[in-house]
């Protein structure tokens, strides 16, 4: 029996809920969850100026699409910010669907590059025999670049495409690396500072596979391509572990995420609110002296 409750043929089986859904009911469930996440977490308000961090991958492209839809009921300004890290053979391929989707939806896209930001592409930085893995370097630089770009574009919120899998993986990675203070600031920063543009993650309760299914059902064109540096990432091991566990024990990812949400306030309390100073090199906010961006590109 692979039928949806409406009698139509199911296109997906949600193992964690033990039910089949047809295309129409899957899309309805996806949209409802998206809106509930935005509403329950008070992510947006009327008149906000919002930028989507748009890489052109499935998550950020679906996020752009869903936010554009949401604007029909909640008016806010929406733009897209794309960071070109300079990864040959990868980023230029995902930038095509990013540009196409912006044009299709009539959304302004601003492109910023690592090269403009620090004089080097990620490929060039990686060649420089750094102690940091490519994904660590890219993570620090991309966060810095996105925040700077968002400020330059005068946005109130920066919407990120992080999905349920990303959030659950990050939580487990921080536990495995014995960095509990990072868990406390996984969703929101410990210190509120006007120089940090507020980040929102409307897909944080949506499993990664469902984002892909939604894109397919909605006819959103995507390039299925893997970053050449992904093989170095610790995240890959955690992803495999989590996906194997999810297959055996459906609902695990939701349980990990809900555990985080339950613990979040206590963790923030436990790890204090701290103070921010200013990086003496670039002037951006930093928790201790020279910021990670400046120490990485020196």
């Amino acid at each position, binding site marked *: *029996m*692979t039928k949806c409750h409406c009698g139509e043929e*199911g*296109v*997906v*089986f949600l193992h964690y809920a033990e039910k*089949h859904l047809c*295309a129409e009911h899957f899309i309805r469930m996806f949209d409802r969850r998206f809106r509930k996440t935005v509403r329950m977490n008070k992510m947006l308000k009327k008149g906000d100026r919002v930028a989507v961090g748009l890489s052109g*991958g*499935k998550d950020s492209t679906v996020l752009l699409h869903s936010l554009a839809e949401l604007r029909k009921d909640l008016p806010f300004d929406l733009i897209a910010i794309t960071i070109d890290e300079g990864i040959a053979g*990868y980023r230029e391929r995902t930038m095509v669907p990013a540009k196409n989707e912006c044009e299709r939806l009539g959304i302004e896209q601003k492109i910023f590059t690592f090269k403009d930001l620090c004089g080097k592409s990620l490929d060039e930085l990686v060649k420089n025999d750094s102690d940091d893995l490519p994904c660590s370097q890219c993570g620090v630089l991309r966060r810095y670049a996105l925040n700077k770009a968002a400020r330059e574009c005068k946005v109130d919120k920066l919407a990120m495409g992080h999905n349920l*899998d990303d959030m659950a993986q990050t939580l487990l990675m921080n536990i495995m690396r014995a960095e509990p203070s990072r868990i406390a600031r996984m969703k929101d920063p410990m210190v509120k500072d006007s120089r940090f543009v507020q980040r929102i993650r409307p897909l944080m309760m949506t*499993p*990664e*596979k469902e984002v*892909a*299914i939604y894109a*397919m*059902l909605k006819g959103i064109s995507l390039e*299925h*391509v*893997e*970053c050449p*540096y*992904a*093989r170095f*990432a610790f*995240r*890959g091991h955690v*992803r*495999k572990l989590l*996906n*194997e566990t*999810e*297959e055996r024990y459906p609902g695990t990812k939701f349980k990990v995420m809900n555990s985080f949400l339950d613990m979040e306030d206590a963790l923030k309390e436990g790890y204090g609110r701290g103070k921010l100073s200013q990086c003496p090199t670039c002037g951006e906010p930093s928790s201790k002296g020279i910021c990670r961006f400046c120490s990485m590109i020196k």
Partner: protein
Amino acid sequence: MAESGSVEIRVDNEKLDMEFDGTIGELLRELKLMREEVVVKVNGKLAPETKNIFKSDKIHIIKVVFGG
């Protein structure tokens, strides 16, 4: 019940020709693919892992979870 026999299977762009009798979920396990990381189209339409595969079916397994 699924019919036993050779089915046309494609994993991304790689074509496989194999005897198979069972559901999509069982096929994924046989191919050592994680169901959390792929979506499957049967005769061009998205299908759940619980669906039985028939001899004349064209199966396309698409990897959708990547690092990056």
